[in-house]
């Protein structure tokens, strides 16, 4: 909080004698500025906003009431404490003073001690209220950081994994907002995007937004169809919702291998579909109902096939309802036209350009609503061409692990992968599968794990998923002991063999499942198996 001695008091009075008395009384307590008339006072206040104003009423030119009213309209002095010092002592005069916006009114002749005391009191109250506002502002800044932290950050990893381009941005109208977007790698053939808008603004909207986004991310991994994701999200949000908040929501699931995009809409503005050489269009026809009103609703799906280079633009109504100074809104037609002009641009560029165009349109009018934009463009690089893929369900027995090994071997040989590369892959699968059976699934033949193999980007990929107890085979070798094993050294052999057999190995825990993935580069034909993933 500011020191009282550092506070600046602006004294306004046309009589020099009065000024001298006040200066004499206050000069050792605070910094002072002086003005002999209303005009001078306003100019001085605009240049160097004071912390408090002592204002005479009867002055030539602008009287004190007018000065006070004008100060209340200037942003620099709208909140500054103003105290009238006047010989006018009727109740009407005092009332007029308070109605003009003053905080206090002292009649002349005054006791200097009383003036000093009231000045100090007003300054302390102001300093306290400033500190509270700063505290709130700083908490809102932290809330914004937390909220922004929930948005997906590593779009580059998703772009690489799925062969797409992604652009995304979010500008809250206040420190925290109710717009949201997300992108999840739900499965090798499932990229899930969502974008939504919570009713209202500020802290209540952002809290509902956090709830919606956390649920959506969880559902995206467990549920395949977007219309079912919306239905379950709606069922969850519609209960325990006493303030009746709702969220409009779009969910889109892309299979990058086929370009198939399935979109479900819950009352949100329709995304724009961009195809090169074709006019822009709306990606879905129906609007649907927003989430959170009542449980048990069903939602429709729209299926599209994206070709390489095609793009889809998702946005919130902060875009279409951006107003300019002439009270015109950006609107749907302008959006279609501007987005259409961006067909062929990269996804990131499209999102940024669209945002710039909206800002240029609004041209300085304050942003009334949160703005979120997300763009997806299907890559046209040849490596994106997804090759063959196979998925197996293997029960938790050693024999099933070896069945998986046999299938993998046949899959690789069919693709013409040479034996020196196939062998380490099968070894890695045997070791990892055994770990899953022995440790994560406890040799329970009634439980199963899923193995997926696919060929893409010049490498062979294997992903293993099991619903067992959390088990990260890439850590502490002693964990990888088979049941009954005593030798600590021996326990690390499986992991060593895996690491030396593959190029990349990584584990994550996702949606209640262990997910282990490894890849081996295939290299030029005839290359012997290279060294591995350390």
């Amino acid at each position: 909080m500011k020191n009282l001695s550092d506070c600046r008091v602006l004294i306004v009075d046309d009589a020099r004698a009065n000024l001298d008395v006040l200066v004499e009384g206050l000069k050792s307590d605070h910094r002072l500025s002086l003005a002999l008339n209303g005009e001078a006072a306003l100019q001085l206040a605009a240049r160097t906003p004071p912390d408090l104003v002592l204002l005479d009423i009867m002055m030539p030119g602008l009287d004190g009431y007018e000065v006070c009213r004008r100060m209340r309209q200037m942003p620099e002095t709208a909140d500054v404490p103003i105290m009238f010092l006047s010989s006018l002592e009727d109740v009407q005069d005092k009332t007029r003073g308070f109605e003009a916006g003053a905080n206090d009114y002292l009649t002349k002749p005054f006791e200097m001690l009383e003036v000093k005391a009231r000045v100090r009191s007003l300054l302390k109250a102001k300093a306290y209220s400033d500190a509270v506002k700063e505290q709130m502002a700083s908490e809102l800044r932290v809330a914004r950081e937390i909220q922004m932290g929930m948005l997906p950050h590593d779009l580059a990893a998703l772009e690489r994994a799925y062969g797409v381009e992604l652009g995304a941005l979010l500008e809250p109208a206040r420190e925290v907002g109710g717009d949201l977007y997300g992108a999840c790698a739900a499965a090798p053939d499932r990229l899930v995007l969502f974008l939504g808008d919570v009713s209202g603004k500020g802290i209540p909207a952002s809290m509902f937004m956090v709830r919606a986004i956390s649920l959506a991310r969880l559902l995206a991994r467990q549920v395949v169809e977007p219309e079912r994701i919306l239905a379950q999200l709606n069922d969850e949000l519609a209960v325990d919702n006493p303030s009746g908040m709702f969220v409009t929501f779009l969910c889109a699931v892309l299979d990058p291998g086929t370009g198939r995009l399935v979109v479900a809409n819950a009352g949100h503005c329709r995304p724009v579909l961009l195809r090169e050489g074709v006019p822009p269009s709306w990606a879905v026809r129906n609007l649907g109902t927003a989430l959170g009103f009542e449980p048990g609703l069903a939602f429709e799906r729209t299926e599209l096939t994206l070709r390489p280079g095609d793009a889809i633009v998702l946005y919130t109504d902060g875009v279409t309802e951006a107003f300019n100074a002439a009270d015109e809104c950006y609107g749907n037609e302008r959006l279609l036209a501007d987005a259409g002009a961006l067909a062929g641009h990269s996804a990131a560029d499209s999102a940024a350009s669209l945002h710039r165009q909206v800002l240029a349109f609004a041209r300085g009018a304050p942003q009334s609503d949160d703005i979120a934009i997300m763009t997806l463009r299907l890559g046209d690089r040849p490596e994106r061409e997804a090759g063959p893929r196979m998925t197996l369900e293997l029960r938790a027995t050693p024999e099933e692990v070896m069945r998986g090994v046999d299938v993998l071997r046949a899959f690789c040989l069919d693709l013409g992968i040479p034996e020196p590369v196939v062998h380490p892959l099968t070894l890695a699968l045997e070791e990892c599968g055994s770990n899953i059976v022995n440790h994560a699934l406890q040799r329970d033949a009634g439980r199963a794990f899923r193995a997926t193999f696919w060929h893409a980007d010049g490498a062979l990929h294997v992903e293993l998923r099991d619903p067992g107890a959390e088990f990260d085979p890439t850590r502490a070798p002693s964990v990888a002991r088979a049941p009954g094993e005593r030798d600590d050294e021996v326990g690390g052999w499986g992991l060593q063999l895996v690491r030396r057999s593959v190029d990349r190995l990584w584990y994550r825990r996702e949606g209640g499942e262990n997910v282990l993935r490894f890849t081996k580069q295939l290299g030029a034909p005839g290359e012997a198996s290279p060294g591995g993933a350390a």
Partner: protein
Amino acid sequence: MPLEIKIVQNTTARNTGRTTVALAGSLDTATSPELERRLSPVLPVCGKELIFDLAQLKFVSSAGLRIFSMVRKQLKDRGGQAVFVNMQPQINEVFEIIKALPGMTVFKDLAEFDAYIAARQRSHEQD
């Protein structure tokens, strides 16, 4: 791939001599319990040398290596040794990666092993 196990014992009443275990196919998490079962009655009476002939072994995982390690230790405790011969390249590579069977004796083939044994016996006789 299944595992075929052929055990040839060439031992004496005093438990000297050697036993050869020829493996064919795949020694992995599914087949290693079978090898353990077949070896368990043989180990106490296998003589001084247990030779694993791996000429036909196409696949080995850490499950198989554990059995080899256990056998090697048991034999060493009795003053004997476990020996591995005729390894295919990918099997040899696995042994190389692990490098964790200390004092593990690997010979290119049986002839090399026999020559080694003969040389050792000669040096014994000279002592």
